[in-house]
């Protein structure tokens, strides 16, 4: 009962069968898109709040920004984008019915997720060791809030990827039915998308 697929536009189901390539539905389940939009909204408000709070105390923000490890941030950007690329390869693979390839690509993306988490954890460790907390000043409040909130999204994305990998490995997806892969992929790309704004905003722009 729970696996029954509901299609918003009944005629579209036929279109999908015909594999009309130009106009498709959203990749993945609609429910994840509501979630994605809500998360992007929350992050968006935080980004803008950061910028306007900075306007109130530019010196403090610039000075505190200097203490961040920009290299770690840049490496993490490369890592996350590459993992996104792997996820995309996985989606392409399953669209061609290659279950094992899909699982391998997702596994590679998951590993890079682990690298991101490792680097980020080292960054957090350095900051905490320096006695920096959410209450140190408004720059660190935003830096920690934004990166930690994002960090949790990476962890959640990894859990989702792990579930998708397990199912893909068992051959649970196919050329015709791979909404689950697309759903997980969409979430992972969102995590990437948010970091693409977060990195220049918090680490670079001054």
């Amino acid at each position: 009962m729970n696996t029954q697929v509901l299609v918003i536009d009944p005629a579209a189901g036929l279109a999908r069968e015909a594999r009309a390539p130009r106009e498709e539905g959203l990749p993945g389940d609609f429910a994840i898109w509501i979630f994605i939009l809500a998360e992007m909204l929350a992050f968006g408000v935080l980004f803008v709040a950061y910028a306007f709070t900075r306007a109130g105390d530019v010196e403090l923000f610039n000075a505190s920004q200097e203490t961040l490890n920009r290299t770690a941030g840049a490496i993490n950007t490369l890592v996350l984008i590459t993992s996104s690329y792997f996820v995309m390869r996985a989606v392409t693979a399953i669209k061609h019915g290659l279950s094992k390839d899909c699982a391998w690509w997702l596994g590679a993306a998951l590993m890079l997720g682990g690298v991101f988490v490792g680097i980020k954890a080292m960054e957090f460790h350095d900051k905490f060791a320096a006695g920096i907390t959410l209450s140190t000043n408004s720059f660190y409040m935003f830096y920690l809030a934004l990166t930690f909130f994002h960090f949790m999204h990476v962890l959640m994305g990894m859990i989702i990827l792990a579930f998708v990998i397990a199912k893909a490995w068992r051959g649970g997806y196919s050329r015709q039915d791979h909404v689950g892969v697309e759903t997980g992929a969409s979430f992972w790309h969102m995590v990437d998308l948010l970091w693409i704004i977060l990195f220049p905003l918090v680490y670079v722009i001054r």
Partner: protein
Amino acid sequence: MQYQSQAVAKPYFIAAIGLFVGQILFGLIMGLQYVIGDFLFPAIPFNVARMVHTNLLIVWLLFGFMGASYFLVPEETETELFSPKLAIITFWVFLVAGALTVLGYLLVPYSTLAEMTGNNILATMGREFLEQPLITKIGIVIVALSFLFNITMTLLKGRKTSISLVLTLGLLGLAVFFLFSFYNPVNLVKDKYYWWWVVHLWVEGVWELILGAILAFVLIKVTGVDREVIEKWLYVIITMTLITGIIGTGHHYYWIGAPEYWQWWGSIFSALEPIPFFMMTVFAFNMVSRRRREHPNKAAVLWALGTGVLAFLGAGVWGFLHTLAPVNYYTHGTQLTAAHGHLAFYGAYVAVVLTMISYAMPILRGRAANSEKAQNMEKLAFWLMSISMLVITLLLTGAGIVQIWLQRISPTPMGFMAVQDQVSIFYWLREGTGVVFLIGLVIYISSFFVKGGAKAAA
């Protein structure tokens, strides 16, 4: 009535309405004390009236939730209730405990009551909404556990629908978060911090799961829209509720000594809290317009739509109005808070319980819907109560704005009591509107006693 054991819901609903009347009467007493300060003093001081007013509200809503669950769960799970007898015992225990507690409030000085009921063993009393004596609190836990046991056992032996799962999850959360009412550290900041784990995580968290489940159930029944559609939207709405509402707790942590970053977390996430309420309104109207059947119970449909709109206004709009930290700095703890509290509780929880009662009570009395005449009375009552509550909210908002201006923004701030005199006109009008609300309530109750012309059971 499809299952015999659904009948146990009836006493719960009757008790709920009875206590509702009590709540309104004490509300009117308080409203009068706002303008005639010594009214009923020293027989019923304001703090006692308020305690009765708010505690009756909580208790009758709990009766409503339980009655709703006992009606809803057998039908959803397609099986008789695990133990109707336990449900009846629980009912009487809860009613007697509730009545004794209220009598305790009214007849014994609060400090004496505290001493009599073991507050020296574990001090939990004297905090807003959690004024109940220790033994009552323990009683509430026992009642909640036996109720949850009954519901869960029923769920386990029957069909597991999303609606019944969400409802049970909400009820479980209700019981779990109530446990924080037993934690009362001397450190006032911690006391307040965890006090909100009961109050906020109830009304802006788990209670909304209960609300959503009840509303979804009634919408399925009265519109005939596919369960699959309604249930997936239920999930989407409660997801939005929790992802905004949990961190949204931060909007209570601005000025109580908690770290200042809560001003950001609280503002941002609680600013998103209207979204699920808006979705709920759209959802309710959408389902009704897509209806596949004309249910004879038009009054229930009206209540269901009303819940959506009023919850959005009360919890969503009036909540948003003062949730941003820079605004809340000025509005915190003023009549504006009272305004929001009234419309939010009425629009979300009173309305959803009355929606369920409106749908279920005719069925419990052996008919699909009440007579045309009775329904018209009920609809009139809906409009009277809803509009007067909206007017009360507007009046309290007016009082709040003047209060904020004179007491907090003005370069020559006035003292609290002086300001209260300035806004008394709002309080007089509020009291008058409260009487209209009571009239609406009387008409509502009378609608149950209209004879004749009942529609046959479907």
